[in-house]
Structure formats: structure tokens, C-alpha cells
């Protein structure tokens, strides 16, 4: 697989090179809400202090709001996204791993979502390993790690003054070849990866996931769900900053004969999520709603796809206005014998 070496100081040159090669480039930038992926328009790239964007990179695969089809009278057509090549630079391993989980639902066995596929096939995810995880990070508790490469097209490792790049998919391979970088020596790559292993080793898992997983479901009726959800305000902040939450709602916008069919993010912690047309709501209370969120992350998705859906980025812990903490939920429900 192709590799590349870029001086940290010359990162802007690398990104400009990607732009010149025809990619729309996105990179982390300080925004009003904290860090966000923003279109890169040349100039210095300042990543000092960057760990995670406030909202995950999920929107590059599954935008918050998108038209899936247009209709006009009896005619209609899929509203597919433009086939422009995009480079998403500086994604963290947790977000990339979440992308690989979205892939199961939208691009894998069974239904293959045409909108998702266009975006996937035209976006290069360049994933930057984490050298300074936050106290709220818990990727090592959910089978991930600060240099985990799942979902990445290109991995980016820091090595002194250099950034070492390694392609991990055909898309990443093609991208690195197009940019014609100096290759990264094998021994430098190996040394850089080893340093990240040490960072990972310092972050002991919070639980034995294999043990906790069945317990969460067995304890479906546990009082602890009530306790943990008692402070939940039933907003959707957790789901909307989350890299792996992927439920959506659908609505038509326009007149009855002409308009757009929209798909947009939805959140299971909000009461209308399960509201039936009859007016009945099977999850009218917030404890069952929050339990659904945790069980989907830690149990149901695993039943369906053999993977944990929570990737441990900790964004929900930070975004929650009431400090509902998913780590605590798992510990509290699955904790004691």
C-alpha cells in the first residue's frame, strides 16, 4: 500500500495539493461552536488544540438534511448528490470507525442506499491518530483505539516534525498516488504506530464489554435505567453530535404535487420518535427512550451486525445539557453481579 511523508509545517501545501488534484478539501477549523470540519480555502492550518469536532464527521456520509427524491406530478427522480471528489482531513479514528458501522446499514448486505454510496465512493477519509485523548474519550472500552484504522482510507500518524501517511483502501491508494508524496520509511511508520500503542495501553477499558453486553439486555427492567434517565431532558443533542447514530425521519416538502422528499436525522431520546399515527406512544417515558439509545449502541446493533455501535468518542457526554453519561449508564446497569 502507498505511503507518504508530509512535514507538519507543510500541511497546507499538502492540502493545497489535494485541492489542485481536484478534491474539495475539508479540515478541522475553529468555529463558533468549537471545532468543525470546514472547507479548506488555502493558508495555514492551525490544528493546535484540536481533538474532536463538536459535531462528528457523520454528515459527510449521511447529511443532517438531504433531498432523496424530487417529484412533479406523476414524475419523480432520485435526487442524487453531486459526484465531486472530497478529502476529509483530520477525522479521528472514532468517527472513521463509526463510518464503517454506517456502511453495514447503508452500503452493506441487503439494502444499498444510492445517496450514501455516491458520497462514500467520492470521499477520502484521512484519519489522524490521537496523541492526546480527553478524559471523556473511551474508545479503548469499546474495542477501538487512538490509532485504530477501521474505516480509514488513509491513516495519518504524527512522527516528530513529520506526518506519516499510509493508504488503507483502494480509494486511499489512488489518492496518495495522485499526490506524489515522498514515501514514509517503513521503520518510521512502525515506530510511530508503536508510540500510539503506548497511548492506548494507558487507557484501561472501563468494562469487560463481552460481559457487560448481555447484562444490559438481561437487566431491561432494572431500576438503574430510571435513575440514569431521571435527569435526561429528552432533547436530541446526544444523537446529533454522535458519529454512529444513524436513524432518520422522512418528510415531503413542497406542494402535494411538486416538491422534495427529505431525509433528516432523528433522535430516539425525543418523545415523538416513536409516536404512532393513532396517538399512542410506546416509549412515552424518557427512561425507556434512553434505554433504547444505550441498548441500540451496546446490544441490538451487535445482535444484527456483530459490532458495538458506540465508538467511545464521548461527544454525548460533553454535549448533554444534563450530564447524562453513557459510560455511567453502562457501568450502573451492567456493573454489579
Amino acid at each position, binding site marked *: 500500500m502507498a505511503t507518504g511523508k508530509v512535514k507538519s509545517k507543510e500541511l497546507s501545501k499538502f492540502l493545497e495539493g489535494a485541492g489542485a488534484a481536484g478534491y474539495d478539501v475539508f479540515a478541522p477549523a475553529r468555529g463558533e461552536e468549537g471545532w468543525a470540519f470546514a472547507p479548506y480555502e488555502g493558508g495555514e492550518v492551525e490544528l493546535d488544540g484540536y481533538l474532536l469536532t463538536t459535531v462528528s464527521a457523520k454528515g459527510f456520509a449521511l447529511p*443532517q438534511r438531504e433531498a432523496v427524491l424530487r417529484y412533479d406530478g406523476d414524475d419523480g427522480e432520485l435526487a442524487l448528490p453531486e459526484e465531486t471528489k472530497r478529502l476529509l482531513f483530520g477525522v479521528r479514528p472514532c468517527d472513521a470507525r463509526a463510518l464503517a458501522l454506517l456502511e453495514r446499514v447503508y452500503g452493506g448486505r441487503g439494502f444499498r442506499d444510492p445517496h450514501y454510496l455516491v458520497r462514500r465512493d467520492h470521499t477520502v477519509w484521512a484519519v489522524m491518530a490521537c496523541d492526546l485523548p480527553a478524559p471523556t474519550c473511551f474508545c479503548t472500552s469499546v474495542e477501538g483505539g487512538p490509532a485504530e484504522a477501521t474505516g480509514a482510507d488513509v491513516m495519518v500518524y504524527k512522527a516528530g516534525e513529520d506526518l506519516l501517511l499510509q493508504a488503507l483502501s483502494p480509494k486511499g491508494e489512488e489518492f496518495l498516488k495522485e499526490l506524489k508524496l515522498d514515501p514514509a520509511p517503513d521503520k518510521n511508520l512502525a515506530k510511530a504506530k508503536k508510540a500510539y500503542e503506548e497511548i492506548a495501553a494507558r487507557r484501561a477499558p472501563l468494562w469487560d464489554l463481552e460481559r457487560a453486553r448481555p447484562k444490559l439486555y438481561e437487566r431491561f427492567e432494572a431500576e438503574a435505567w430510571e435513575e440514569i434517565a431521571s435527569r435526561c431532558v429528552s*432533547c436530541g443533542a446526544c444523537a446529533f453530535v454522535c458519529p454512529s447514530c444513524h436513524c432518520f425521519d422522512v418528510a415531503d416538502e413542497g406542494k402535494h404535487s411538486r416538491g422534495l422528499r427529505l431525509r433528516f436525522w432523528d433522535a430516539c431520546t425525543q418523545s415523538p420518535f416513536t409516536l404512532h399515527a393513532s396517538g399512542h406512544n410506546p416509549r412515552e417515558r424518557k427512561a425507556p427512550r434512553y434505554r433504547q439509545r444505550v441498548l441500540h449502541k451496546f446490544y441490538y446493533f451487535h445482535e444484527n451486525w456483530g459490532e458495538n455501535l458506540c465508538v467511545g468518542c464521548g461527544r454525548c457526554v460533553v454535549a448533554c445539557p444534563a450530564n447524562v453519561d453513557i459510560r455511567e449508564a453502562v457501568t450502573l446497569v451492567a456493573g454489579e453481579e
Partner: protein
Amino acid sequence: MTIENDIRAKARELLERDEAEVVIGCEEGTTPLTARPALLREAAEADRLVWNRYCTSGLARYVLEYIRERRRQRDFDASAAKKVAVVAKPCDARALVTYIQENQFGREDIYVLGLNCTPRVDRRRVLEKVGAYRVQEARLDGEELVVTTTAGGEARLPLADYVEASCAVCAHLVPPLADVTFGEAAAPPEAEEAFARVREHEARSVNERWEWVRRELGRCLRCYACRQVCPVCYCEECFAEQRHPAWIGPATAPEDLVAFHLVRVFHTAGRCIECGECERACPMNIELRVLSEKLIQDVKEKFGYEAGEDVEARPPLATYQPDDPNEGFM
């Protein structure tokens, strides 16, 4: 920490003597700089309660939610119901007054552990300064906040520079409603500090204000955190989610975001109690208080009314006077 101990002692007593079935207060959070709502039902849990610089959570809404939920129980017997106790900052108490004015529950349904207030810490500004994912630990050292970072550094931040924005302009430092009161109130801020943000916004040109709308409201995720924490945004069904008719679109089209925030804030006119929870709850740091403060200012200037001060008062939008200002009517 005598206030904290007094609160705990009272909470313990209320639960022990069965005078309250729940005490709603704040407890230590799971991340630095955080305290969070806690609903206690056992006297033995009373020591979970804290009263510190991070206690910003609005608790009144939990009272309303608790009482509503209780009423929904099939076996609920109103005559046998015990009180819902709440540790209330003045803003919480003002929200409780509003609930009583609006007939959501009666004064007799609640027991209020009122707090004479002092300003809280602005957690978001601390995170902005140090980095949202960089705070390892935080502790108070006199009038300084000492923050250690994940990079091993230490920042010493003067508390006076990190006062919660809504507290910095708050002149309501004594709860208007309380069964027992704790602590000493801080001196109110200088009068000119009130509405400073509104004046700043009003001084902008039309184009600059439009730019503000696009930048601030335009990044809304429509997670509804602002609405969900707002003490007076308690409709069982929100206009924003009604589909028949659909007043606004369901997603994040710019016009829908603007419509959502403007209509929501208008629904709080004469009712907003300036707690600032909307802005604190917003994961996107939207300057929501520019809108709510403008309405507070208008209601104060035109109707001489401040929300949540007096249970007997008639809110301006629930009453009519022949000499009401009719600006805007054709």
C-alpha cells in the same frame, strides 16, 4: 460549605419525615466543571446534594415534569400526594412562580429550599479558553479556578472573568418564593449591564443583523435542547413538531431554523425568567439570549412587568388594558 450542609440536612429531614416524596437538587457531575440535576427519594441519599459554582442546571422543569408524570399514574391520589421539594436558585423560584400563575400546579404541591444567589461559573467560556476536550481537572483556589489540561499544563483563571453570562446581568438574587432560605445574596450588578447585549445587537445594521441570524441560527441542529431545558417551554405538543398543519418544515432548512427560534422565543414573551439555560444547553453555542433578552426588555419597558416575581400578578399576555401599547397593530 455550610450552605451545602444546610441543604442536605433539610433534604434529609423532609424525606425522613415523609414531608416530601422527592427532593430535586444538584449533584456532582461526571466531568470537571459540572454539576447536574438529581432526584432523591431516600433520606440516605441527601449527601449527594451539592451547592457549588457549577450548579447552573434549571431544576424547576424537573418539578413540573415530576408532577405531570405523577398525575398520569392510574392510582394517583391527589389528596394523599406529598410535596415535591426543590432546591431553587432565584431563577428556578421565578419559574415556579410562573407555573403557579399558569395553573400548572399549586403552591401547596411544592416545598422550596430557596437559595440567595451568587454568580455561577461559565463552563463554556472556560472550555473555550482551555479547549473543550482538554480539561483534565478543575479546582477552586480562592477566587481562582485552577484547570489542569491533558497536555500537562495548568491555567489559573480569575473567577471574576468567568462569570456565567446570565448571572453577570442578573438582578434577581433572592428567590421570590421559598419555604426556607439559605445563604447570602451577592450584590446585584450595575444597572447598565442589563440588556448590554441587546443594545449591542440593536446597534448593528440590518445587514449585520441578518448576518447574525445566518451565522447563529443557521448552525442550529434542531436538537431542541434549548426548548427542553427552558422552564417555560413546556407545551405538551410543540408547534415545531405539529404536522397537521405543519407550521414549519421538520428539518434544518435555514428558514425553518429561523422560524423555530423566533416563534419559540415569542412564546416565552413575558414568561422568560432569564435563567440562561437555553444558551448553556445549546451544543452549538448559539447566542440565544440575544433574542430572549430583547423580549424581556420590551415587556419591562412597555408593560412594566417582570416574569416570575409574584404569584398574584397577572402576566401582560394574560390580561388586557385599554392603554396597552398597540405598536405593530394597523
